[in-house]
């Protein structure tokens, strides 16, 4: 059974239809890419799946492990194992990054019935993961995303993913604004998560991230619908020919 199963999902924002009958299935252990031109509904898809307010689902369904995802609050979806790496990570002035990360981790651990981590236990784990992501330790002390460079923000997202160990990670244009070194670090972070019970949906405009995270399937989203699906080679074809060909097909 698919870990994430989206059927004929439609959604609108302010009365404007953005998603227009998406169907998509991501089995456990697989990484899928969703590619598409600007305005095709990529970010909307990630927000609807994560439960952001302001997006109205007008039809279809999305289930996660057979559970109706759309009926859950955002924090319940997080507790169920869904993680969204934001395209634009949000700044929380005055909230220490370590404090935020530990609170989030303990919130998730609590719902899993795992004991909460105290500050020392948390720091030990956080330091390990940060090292792997080449993040300087002082980023723990700074306000959440406050004054972070674009690359630091994205790495902070991947750090959160590495700490929270979700079952489904949605990466919303995590590659945008990253130089090649940062891109590799982020890709390594995602690849390190690969496991039979981990799936990911990588939303991207460009193919280049997919050179480092090889997807099992690639889907092309145009005007709120999946117009084409294929293997990793589809991404290369798109990179060569652009979205024009698939857009015509839509």
């Amino acid at each position, binding site marked *: 059974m698919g870990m994430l199963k989206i059927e004929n999902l439609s959604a609108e924002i302010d009365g404007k239809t953005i998603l227009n009958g998406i169907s998509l299935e991501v089995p456990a252990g697989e990484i899928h890419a969703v590619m598409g031109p600007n305005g095709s509904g990529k970010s909307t898809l990630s927000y609807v799946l*994560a*439960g*952001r*307010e*302001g997006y109205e689902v007008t039809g279809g369904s999305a289930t996660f492990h057979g559970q109706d995802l759309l009926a859950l*609050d*955002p*924090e319940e*979806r*997080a*507790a169920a194992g869904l*993680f*969204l790496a*934001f395209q634009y*990570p*949000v*700044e*929380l*002035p*005055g*909230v*220490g990054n*370590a*404090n*935020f990360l*530990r*609170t*989030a981790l*303990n*919130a*998730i651990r609590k*719902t899993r019935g795992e004991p909460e981590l105290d*500050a*020392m236990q*948390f*720091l030990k784990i956080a330091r390990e993961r940060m090292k792997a992501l080449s993040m300087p330790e002082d980023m*723990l*002390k700074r*306000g*959440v995303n406050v004054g972070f460079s674009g690359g630091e923000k994205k790495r902070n997202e991947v750090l*959160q993913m590495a700490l*929270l160990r979700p079952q489904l990670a949605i990466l919303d244009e995590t590659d945008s604004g990253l130089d090649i070194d940062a891109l590799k670090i982020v890709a390594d972070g995602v690849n390190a998560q690969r496991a039979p019970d981990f799936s990911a949906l990588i939303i991207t405009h460009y193919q280049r991230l997919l050179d480092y995270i090889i997807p099992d399937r690639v889907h092309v989203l145009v005007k709120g619908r999946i117009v084409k699906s294929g293997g990793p080679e589809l991404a290369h074809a798109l990179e060569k020919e652009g979205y024009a060909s698939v857009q015509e097909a839509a």
Partner: protein
Amino acid sequence: MPAVNETIEAVQSVTDSGYKWGFETDIEMEFAPKGLNEDIVRFISKKKNEPEWLLEWRLRAFALWQTMEEPRWSAVKYNPIDYQDAYYYAAPKQGPKSLEEVDPELLRTYEKLGIPLREQEVLAGVEGAGSAADARMPIAVDAVFDSVSVATSYKARLEKEGIIFCSISEAVQTHPELVRKYLGSVVPQGDNFFAALNCAVFTDGSFVYVPKGVRCPMELSTYFRINAKSTGQFERTLIIADEGSTVSYLEGCTAPMRDENQLHAAVVELVALDDASIKYSTVQNWYPGDANGKGGIYNFVTKRAACRGKRSKVSWTQVETGSAITWKYPSCILQGDDSVGEFYSVAIANNWQQADTGTKMIHLGARTKSTIVSKGISAGQGQNTYRGLVRIGPRASGARNFTQCDSLLIGDKCGAHTVPYIENRCLTAKVEHEATTSRIAEDQLFYCRQRGLSQEEAVGMIVNGFCREVLKELPMEFAVEAQKLLQISLEGSVG
């Protein structure tokens, strides 16, 4: 890694909602007759066995008060207060002298409030969980219940250092020369309507004197509790830090939940002589009234510090979460050259609460310096006003002030107002004012919730972040308390 514990504990330990200090203690009380007149003033003075000069002082204040009118310049709105429809003196019948003699019912009350009246042995290194919080310092407490101080702890230990820490009633008896010298020297009897009322009918409060060159070895604190019905509380606190001394003082306050509004009109005077330093922290948690705006404490308070000495320093930190109405402007008169005044404030107005609070920094001496950091949070129908005066006198050459006022709005029915007054009569002074108003952004909430935090936890975290600069000024035990309070005070404000 400091600051990692705080918010998490704050968020997690708060499970049940509502005002948790709203219970009432059933205890035999003695009241003065209802109403206010000269006889009541005499009654109070006699109850306290006061010397003639103090009675005269009270009567002068009462005469002044009768000629004065309630100030109307603030932004708070409330029904007229009937000053004749209240008790001005309410005291537990048994007037205890030592902790052992305190009515057990009272001890239970303070236990319930989490206030340690009993002196605890310091068990060094026994708890051993390894965090800094375990090296807990004892805190000396003066407990004021309605009109009287019921107990003061650690007095003997403080006396060894020459520090006087007792109720002001006791100080009048034991150290009349100090009280007479300093009482009313910072806030004169006719200063304002509420201060004059306080001067006439003040009942109890704390007195602190720290002698020359002494660093007070522990936090001093006063815990104010209004319990009796239809009673006003008029506390009077006087703190004197002699040359080169240092003291940190905290006050907390709670009251039962009642439908009626109760008046609390306190006066606090601080005096810092040469090179002395006073840190005064408040966590104000009077009953704020219910969600419909019924009941709650009217908190009209005059707090002022005189930085009389050279290089003296006074730092006010306040976390104002309670009261239906808060009207208070802890101020510093910076007389001594190179003296320093600080004001750090967090004020919450949720539901129907109104807060009009800020500070006055009066720069008189040369190179005096002041810092004002105000964080106002408005939610529900709450109205929050920052009102502050920075006045630089002609002799205050090289004076500096920095003011930062930030307002946070939660919801769309509340209000935030900033009213800064700046008067500068000195060419070499430098005054800076920064102000921001923001809303808890939807994307911030969503970001937190996507990481597994509930809506309320998310609000608590964002608000605590917003207040961080102020909360870090509080002594550690209080900081944790204050964070929990912020969380509780804002429950139900979103969603």
